[in-house]
């Protein structure tokens, strides 16, 4: 290794202003949060002058309650998640998973899949890197399933609209699917369905690049991605909540019980199928789904739909096609889809 080192982080003032600002914003967040319903009531009924107990009044009130609530939740959640993730990296995760047996390895991989910052365009180098360091394919798949499946945007929206219990259910079942799915794929001897070139790639040394961000750097990073993600999804959120508000006020109760209710056995697989092409709009779909549930759709069906939207996306499959043969992609999609369908039935059966 060469002896000359490049200083990676320019010495930056470790000022107290930034952490103080974050604390202040957090405080404002906590103070505003419990007042949202009152604010929405004041806005709809006093300022605009709509009458409560009317369809229009209810819909408008619903809209002005949900929009700030979801946007605040999203911003808070993304900030926290990015901040926590700044303590993890794919390289560290790879080191942590190296030499683990299947089983414990799958559990660890699923957990780290949630915590490791990861952009889906890195899926291929990450896959090659994992394989090259001898991490079993089943363990690698647990990571690849958990990363998109347990999605912080979905988690924040579920938490905001359905409460912590359902957000928790989503988190736990997502992790379980990742562990079990990886274990099953590992049993199927998937090595022969990995493209040849993957086995030949030699991963080089990065040398002495160590990036040690300061706390302020982490805050800046978290702030930047919060701005970026909220900036990208807010139109979908507003659109989704708008549609949800319309459904809330105008669609009769129990209209959907026959279509998306517990008795319709085919609704779970149908929800999963429907979810595959709907990737980018996850943020907009949840409010619609929330409104549908009030009209008689079943929880398991709704969760299955959610999971399918985030976990099975065509763009990601196309990216993985570079390293996996079609057969293995089909196995991967099949197992994840089956696991989601199973989860959907389980919740429809247990709760309701």
């Amino acid at each position: 290794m060469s002896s000359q080192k490049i200083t990676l982080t320019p010495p930056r003032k470790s000022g107290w202003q930034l952490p103080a600002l974050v604390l202040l914003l957090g405080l404002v967040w906590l103070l505003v949060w419990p007042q949202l319903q009152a604010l929405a009531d004041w806005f709809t009924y006093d300022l605009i002058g709509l009458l409560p107990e009317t369809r229009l009044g209810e819909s408008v009130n619903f809209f002005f309650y949900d929009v700030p609530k979801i946007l605040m939740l999203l911003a808070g959640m993304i900030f926290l998640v990015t901040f926590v993730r700044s303590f993890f990296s794919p390289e560290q995760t790879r080191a942590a998973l190296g030499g683990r047996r299947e089983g414990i390895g799958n559990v660890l991989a699923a957990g780290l899949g949630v915590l490791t910052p990861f952009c889906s365009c890195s899926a291929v180098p990450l896959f090659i890197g994992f394989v090259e360091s001898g991490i079993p394919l089943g363990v690698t798949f647990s990571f690849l399933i958990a990363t998109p499946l347990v999605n912080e945007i979905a988690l924040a929206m579920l938490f905001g609209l359905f409460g912590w219990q359902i957000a928790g259910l989503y988190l736990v079942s997502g992790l379980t699917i990742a562990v079990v799915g990886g274990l099953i794929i590992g049993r199927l001897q998937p090595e022969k369905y990995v493209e040849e070139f993957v086995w030949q790639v030699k991963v080089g040394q990065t040398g002495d690049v160590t990036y040690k961000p300061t706390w302020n750097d982490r805050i800046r990073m978290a702030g930047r991605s919060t701005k970026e993600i909220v900036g990208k999804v807010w139109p979908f959120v507003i659109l989704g909540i708008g549609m949800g508000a319309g459904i809330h006020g105008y669609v009769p109760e129990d209209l959907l019980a026959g279509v998306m209710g517990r008795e319709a056995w085919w609704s779970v697989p149908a929800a999963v199928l429907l979810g595959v092409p709907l990737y980018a709009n996850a943020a907009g779909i949840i409010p619609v789904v929330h409104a549908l549930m009030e009209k008689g759709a079943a929880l398991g069906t709704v969760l299955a739909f959610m999971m399918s939207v985030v976990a099975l996306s065509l763009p990601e499959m196309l990216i993985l096609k570079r390293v996996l043969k079609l057969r293995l992609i089909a196995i991967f999609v099949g197992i994840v889809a089956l696991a989601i369908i199973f989860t959907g039935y389980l919740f429809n059966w247990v709760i309701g």
Partner: protein
Amino acid sequence: MLKIKVLGPGCANCKRVEQIARNEVEKLGVAAEIEKVTDYAQIMAYGVMSTPGLVIDEKVVAYGRIPTNEEVSQWLIAAQN
């Protein structure tokens, strides 16, 4: 002449790193050649598993994140000396 390489398959983040590198090169007025490396085997040869990566004169200076303009400019100055 500095040789700058941006490692990544060409997603939004990779393009941003390339843009930052171009800006800083222009600002400093250094002679540099910027190349995009999209081939996975080549990317991995630098030991970079999380894209985007930035390489100056065959030395990986950052990966898995978007460096700031000031950082890139510092690396360029350091590489020139």
